[in-house]
Each structure stands twice: as structure tokens, then as C-alpha cells.
């Protein structure tokens, strides 16, 4: 079988960074080709070149047997390559159908054929298993998962031979991922090739056919069989060392008994999101919240943080009642929140990595409002190193960082002294395997220093492996609470989905 896509010697130089340095990629028709690599390895850059969004400095692309040069995205789309980008690229003010067909509208004499488009959009969405999303609804009103599905529908709306997906599962929960895989299988059946990027290796094993590994802008391995290559080998190809997907050791069960509560939440309710949630986090303890997308985990921690107002219930930090409604008070009391959507909720895109890190604790480097810039700079430098942010330069604009490295900058923000409680919402979203292990170690170390951690993650193994205690949520209510060691993944999934384990 001849290759559908052949990329050879692709070089892309960004000012100051050689993002790609001679990358090769071969993709066959009808296969799921996985692209792996650490954060900043150049995966997104490579597929943007393929999509015509970037122009390569060197290298050739052969698609369907012909050498091609995509001057712009439309050229790539016309040749049959559709792309789902890592950062969502939808227009909030347009309807679902309009987004799906943006740039490719069905029209007669310039007038859009809205009925035709809505019908076609409904079909596409149904094919993706989301017939409940109405094509006429404004995209801005959808959740992140909904938007991801619209992005997918958009890729499918073209007559394509190759679909590129850049971390499509990052915003999806377990059941959604299953759905996604079903669609991918359907596509490959029809002979469409899929390039799939993800940091979740178990997904690769489940859906992938072959794997290409990138490291520091070079191809580290080509065409490895996805199912048979041992994880350790993939990881060492990616990182250049042997990192195991391990969690740091945690204290013995009951080690936290008797330590004072950092956080006590009683009967907290936000209508339509969650009701009557009570929980506590002790000093030095990591408490995990498991649940489906939409089970209200994010809302809970945001409410604890004071970013939302509850209609009932109270939040106590170290015995003191926290008055709701002010995030600045929460920060002063020693809380920290790493929110779910880094771009919308956390990052100051215009600013440097360093300033992004220090913004929350600015008061720490200031006297009477006067910033001590040396202290600030030193902290930034230290945290960039601790979190292994690459490139390790705190003056770099945060927007030039790869997705995973941006995520690390968000977490670094709260690694300053004086935190008593950290609220982490999907802290490893988009972070590569190697970095994850380090991140887990950092979180555990914070806990060992006495910080309480409330952790939300859609990856059940992560919750089970990192947390001391786990709360399972369904439809806004806590349905189970136990020591993490007493649970395993199937059981948690069972509870999440059915509630039968109760």
C-alpha cells in the first residue's frame, strides 16, 4: 500500500526557536497514525504546516502521489486535508451549522441556504452521536466538549482523505472519547486516514495503527506499531530517558487522620450545577473529585474559590467561614485555583511567562504596592526551572509556548509560599507523559509540606493514583467517598455512569 501522505525533511524556524528540524511523516490511507512527542516537540507546528496555516522553511509534502504546497488553509482543505486544531477555532457568535460550514457555505447567488446547511449539520452531528446539539444554536453557548464536537463535524463536512486531530480528547471525558473512537473507526473503514495527537498513551494503544515520535523537532521514530510497542520504549523515545508513568508514593492510609481540616464545605449548592455538596480536605491531603463532564466538579471548586456565589451552604478555610463572591479574598486566605481552560481563564497572552507566573502573588514581591523586581524575577526563574517549562526563559511571551508548557506556567503560578489549599482543575490537560510524572511529584511534595489539594481530573487513573481520598460525583451530588486505594478504575467508571456500585 502506497503512502497517502509523505512529508520529508520539514523545517520550521520561529524567531529564536527551531520548532521543526527535518521531520519526516508517512501516513497511509485508512490508518490511524499517531503523532507523539513531549510538550513543545513540534507536533502542532507540523500539522499546521500540513494544514497550510504555516509555511515550511524547507521540506516537501507529497499528498496522494503529487507534490503539494499549501499556501493557505483553503488550499489544504481543497486537496482533502481537514484539521481539528489544538486551540478551538470556532466563532462564538455564529450558529453551529454556520461554524461547520464556515468558508464552505452552501449558497445560491451569495445567499446562504440555511435550511440545507442546518439539515446537513444535523446529519453530521448525528453521525458523531450528538444529535441533541441543535444546528441553529450559537456556538458560544456550548460547552468545551460541545465545541470540540462541532470542530469535528466541521472537519467531516469536507470531502476529506485525511483528518488531522490535535489533542481532540483533551476536552472530552471518558464516554465522549469512546464516541470519538467510534467515529474514527467509521472513517478509517471508508479509507480516510487520521493523524491523531494525544498525550494519553492508552488511547494510542486503543485506536492507533502506527506511531511516529517527535523529539525536539526531529523524528525520533517512524511507523512503530501502535499496539505492540512497549510503553516504556515509546516514553524513552519521546523523552530520551526512562520515565515511568508512576505516581509518587503517598503516605499510609489514615496518615492524615487527626490533622486539622484546611477546607470544610457544608451543604454547598449552586442550582443547575450541584446540590448539597459537603466535603473536607485535611492538611497535607490530596482529595480527588471524579465524575463525568457536566457532573459539576469545576463548578464546585470555583464556588469554593469564591468565583461563583452559592445559594446555600458554607465554605470554611482553616476554621474560618469564607464569605463568597471574592476571589481576591480567597487568594489572601491562602487558596489558589488552576482553572480548567488555560487560555480563557488563566493566561495573560500578551505577557511574559514570568509575569504570568507572578501575577497572583504579586503582593509577595511588593512593599506598599511597590514591586521588588529582583525578587519577582528570581521567583519566576526558579519556578520555570521547577516546572521544567521549555524553553526555560521566563521573559518569553507565554503565547509562543506549546500548549503543555502553557499549562505548566498556569500551575507554577500557585507554587509560591503561603498557599494552604490548592484547587486544581484538570492540571495535566495537554501535559506530556514525562512532565506529568514530575508534576505529580511536585503536587505530592506540596501536600507533604502541609498544603491541602482538591484535584479534579477526567482521567480516572490520575485521580486514583494521585489522591489520598476520592469523592465520586454524579449529576451534581456526591455519591461516594472513600480512600483512593480502595477503588479501582472500573469501579469508579461504573459509579460515574450507572451508580450501580452503590
Amino acid at each position, binding site marked *: 500500500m502506497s503512502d497517502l501522505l509523505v512529508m520529508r525533511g520539514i523545517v520550521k524556524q520561529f524567531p529564536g526557536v527551531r520548532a521543526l528540524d527535518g521531520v519526516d511523516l508517512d501516513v497511509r490511507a485508512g490508518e490511524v497514525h499517531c503523532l507523539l512527542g513531549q510538550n513543545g516537540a513540534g507536533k502542532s507546528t507540523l500539522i499546521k504546516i500540513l*494544514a497550510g*496555516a504555516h509555511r515550511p522553511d524547507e521540506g516537501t509534502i507529497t499528498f496522494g502521489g503529487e507534490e503539494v504546497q499549501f499556501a*493557505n*488553509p*483553503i488550499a489544504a*482543505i481543497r486537496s482533502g486535508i481537514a*484539521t481539528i*486544531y489544538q486551540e478551538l*477555532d*470556532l*466563532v*462564538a*457568535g*455564529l*450558529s453551529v451549522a*454556520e461554524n461547520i460550514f*464556515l*468558508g*464552505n*457555505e452552501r*449558497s445560491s447567488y*451569495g*445567499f*446562504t441556504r*440555511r435550511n440545507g446547511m442546518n439539515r446537513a449539520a444535523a446529519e453530521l452531528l448525528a453521525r458523531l452521536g*450528538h444529535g*441533541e*446539539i*441543535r444546528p*441553529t*444554536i*450559537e456556538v*458560544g*453557548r*456550548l*460547552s468545551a*466538549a*460541545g465545541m470540540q*464536537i462541532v470542530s469535528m463535524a466541521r472537519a467531516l463536512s469536507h470531502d476529506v482523505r485525511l483528518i488531522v486531530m490535535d489533542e481532540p480528547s483533551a476536552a472530552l471525558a471518558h464516554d465522549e472519547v469512546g464516541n470519538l473512537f467510534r467515529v474514527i473507526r467509521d472513517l478509517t473503514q471508508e479509507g480516510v486516514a487520521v493523524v491523531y495527537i494525544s498525550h494519553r498513551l492508552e488511547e494510542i494503544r486503543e485506536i492507533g495503527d502506527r506511531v511516529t515520535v517527535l523529539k525536539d523537532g526531529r523524528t525520533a521514530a517512524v511507523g512503530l506499531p501502535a499496539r505492540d510497542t512497549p510503553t516504556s520504549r515509546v516514553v524513552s523515545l519521546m523523552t530520551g530517558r526512562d520515565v515511568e508513568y508512576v505516581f509518587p508514593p503517598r503516605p499510609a492510609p489514615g496518615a492524615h487522620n487527626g490533622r486539622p481540616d484546611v477546607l470544610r464545605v457544608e451543604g454547598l449548592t*449552586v442550582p*443547575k*450545577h450541584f446540590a448539597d455538596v459537603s466535603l473536607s480536605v485535611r492538611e497535607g491531603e490530596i482529595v480527588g473529585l471524579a465524575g463525568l*463532564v*457536566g457532573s459539576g466538579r469545576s*463548578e464546585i471548586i*470555583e464556588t469554593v474559590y469564591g*468565583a*461563583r*456565589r452559592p445559594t446555600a451552604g458554607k465554605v470554611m478555610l482553616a476554621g474560618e467561614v469564607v464569605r463568597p*463572591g*471574592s*476571589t481576591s479574598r480567597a487568594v489572601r486566605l491562602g487558596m489558589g485555583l488552576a*482553572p480548567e*481552560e488555560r487560555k*480563557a*481563564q488563566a493566561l495573560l497572552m500578551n505577557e511574559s511567562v514570568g509575569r504570568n507566573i507572578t501575577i497572583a502573588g504579586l503582593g509577595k514581591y511588593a512593599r506598599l504596592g511597590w514591586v521588588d523586581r529582583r525578587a519577582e524575577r528570581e521567583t519566576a526563574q526558579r519556578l520555570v526551572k521547577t516546572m521544567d517549562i521549555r524553553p526555560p526563559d521566563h521573559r518569553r511571551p507565554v503565547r509562543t509556548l506549546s500548549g503543555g508548557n502553557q499549562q505548566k506556567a498556569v500551575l507554577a503560578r500557585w507554587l509560591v509560599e503561603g498557599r494552604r489549599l490548592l484547587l486544581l482543575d484538570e492540571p495535566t490537560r495537554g501535559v506530556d507523559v514525562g512532565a506529568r510524572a514530575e508534576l505529580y511529584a511536585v503536587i505530592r511534595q506540596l501536600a507533604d509540606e502541609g498544603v491541602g489539594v482538591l484535584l479534579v481530573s477526567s482521567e480516572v487513573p490520575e485521580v486514583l493514583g494521585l489522591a489520598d481520598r476520592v469523592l465520586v460525583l454524579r449529576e451534581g451530588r456526591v455519591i461516594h467517598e472513600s480512600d483512593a486505594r480502595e477503588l479501582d478504575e472500573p469501579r469508579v467508571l461504573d459509579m460515574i455512569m450507572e451508580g450501580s456500585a452503590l
Partner: protein
Amino acid sequence: MTDARAPHDGTPDIRTGPGRPQDAPPVATRRTATAASVLGGIGQARHLGLVVALALLAVVGLVTAPETFATSSNMVSILALASTIGVITVGMTFVIIGGGIDLSVGAIMALASVWATTLATQEYGPVVMAICAVLVGTGAGLVNGFLISYGRMVPFIATLAMLVAARGLAQRMSDRKTQLVGQDNTAIVDLSTTRLLGLPLLVYIFALVVAVGWLVLNRTTFGRRTYAVGGNPEAARLAGINVRRHTLILYALSGLCCGIAAIIIMARTTTGSSTHGDLYELDAIAAVIIGGTLLTGGRGTIIGSILGLLIFTLITNLFILNGLNTSDQLIAKGLIIVIAVLLQRRSLDSRT
């Protein structure tokens, strides 16, 4: 700059970002207003606040000036007054939804009116005068568009430069005189004096521009893409839209509207003058924004802009009917704007 940037400390919803209404339910949603928004009708909920504000003003009119306010001639007069800025507002709505701003509208209108009323142009009769106005407007708009899309200038600065230069050019051409529409070209003035079904012709021009603008914005690919270009230019580019060309056309469109407005102002004042349209840019932008269009682009409606404009026009009308002096007019106008906006906010909030 906009609603989206209005801080919302302590509001219950953490996720409310630009364009995200509070408490959007996961994946699917239950908002019914959305479907309506696609229809874009006057009666829809998003314009409720504006309609209420208009109604309140009308009530005030009925109470304070019972004999004069509700007369048909007063209504006609309000519409005729609104029609100049109205036409400009349509173009401005496009530009602002497309993520830009046009400060030069008043100046372009003045230039077009002056050019169309030069003796040389007037020789060719009213049709050529009208065409001239439209061409001058469109041409100036194209220059704006080029500077912004291909010269990559900030719209605020590029159109400010155009404002200054167009007024200067208008003054040069007219030698700072007010140029009367000649005896042979009264067809232009007839637009204002001739009535059809009780309405001056220029009101029909206004209505036509609004209707066409609405159709283009809501029913054509060009219109829909304007939202994309303004709301997320990067996404628009990745979707294969030629963002630069689109932007260019948006400014040309705004210029075209200024040209049409120039015809109307010539009809109403029987003159072309470099002083026409002073500060129209502020009025038009204010109308657009009060009508719910985001200054950051990507969202907005023509109906909203027109309602916003009618509120402004009605306020002035009421003041004069009641013989308020200018100072009091200004104070009252400031208060009314605040109240109208707070009203609209309230009506939006209570839709939850």
C-alpha cells in the same frame, strides 16, 4: 471596551467570557432565545430593553406634548431626521461586527456632498450627482479599507486620518462655502419634499438601506462571514476566508453608506458643505453599541443599531417639543442613556 470586558467580580458565573452567557448548560443547551436571534426580528428578546426604552420615551412624549408628539407629521419628521445617520449606522454596524471601527463617516459624507455639489458635477444633472456622491463615498471607504487591511493600520488611526483629511479636502473643494443644489437639480431636493404615502422619498431610501443591510448581514455568506472575521479572525482565516479582502469590502461598504447619506443630507439641507456630518461618527457608534453590538466585533444586529438610533432621535425630538434648553438637554440625555442601558441589562438578565 465592551460588555465582554466589563469586569464581573463576584458574578455567579466564572465561565462567562466573551459571548458566553451565564450558566450555559453542558454540550447542548436550552436557550430558546438563540433560535430567535437567528431570525433577528424586532420583537425578539434581545431587543426588548431597547423597545421598552423606546416605548417609555413615547409615553413621555404623549404625556408632555400631547398635541404635537403623536401627530403623523412629527413621526415623519423623526424618521426623516433619523435617515441620514441611519444609513451611516447600517454601514457602521457591518464594520463594527467585522471587528473594526470607522471614525471617518461624517467627514466622508461631507466630502461626498461637497463633491456632488460642485458646479462641475452639477452640470451633469441630479443622477450624476447622486452617482458621484456614492462613488466618492465608496472610494474613500476603499482607501480606509486598504490602509487597514493591506497597510495593517489600526482602524481607529486610519479612519481618524481619513476624517481629518476628508474634511480638509471638502473644505478645499468647497472653498469653505456652503454649496447650494442648483435650480436644475431640484430632483435631489425632491427626495425630501416629495411624499409617497405620506412619507418623504428619503425615508424609503433609509428603509431600503436597512432592509438590504439586514438581508446581507443575515442571509448571505458575506454577512455571516463578517461575524467570523470580527469574532475570531484567526478562525476565519483557517476556514479559508480571505480576511483582508473581506475587511476591505467592509470599509468600502461603510463608505458607500456615507455616499448614500450624502444624497439624503443634500436633499434635506439643499446643500453640500464641509461642515455636514460633524460628530456623526460618535452618534453612529453610540447607536450601534447601544443596540447591542460588541465593540470587539463578532456580535450584533442591524435592528438593534436602528433601535438605538431611534432612541437618540426621539430624545432630541422630545427635548425640542418641550422647549428644554441645551444644557438641560445634555444633562437629561446623559441620564437617559444610562437608564436605557441599565434597563436593557436588566431585561437581558431577567431572561435567564
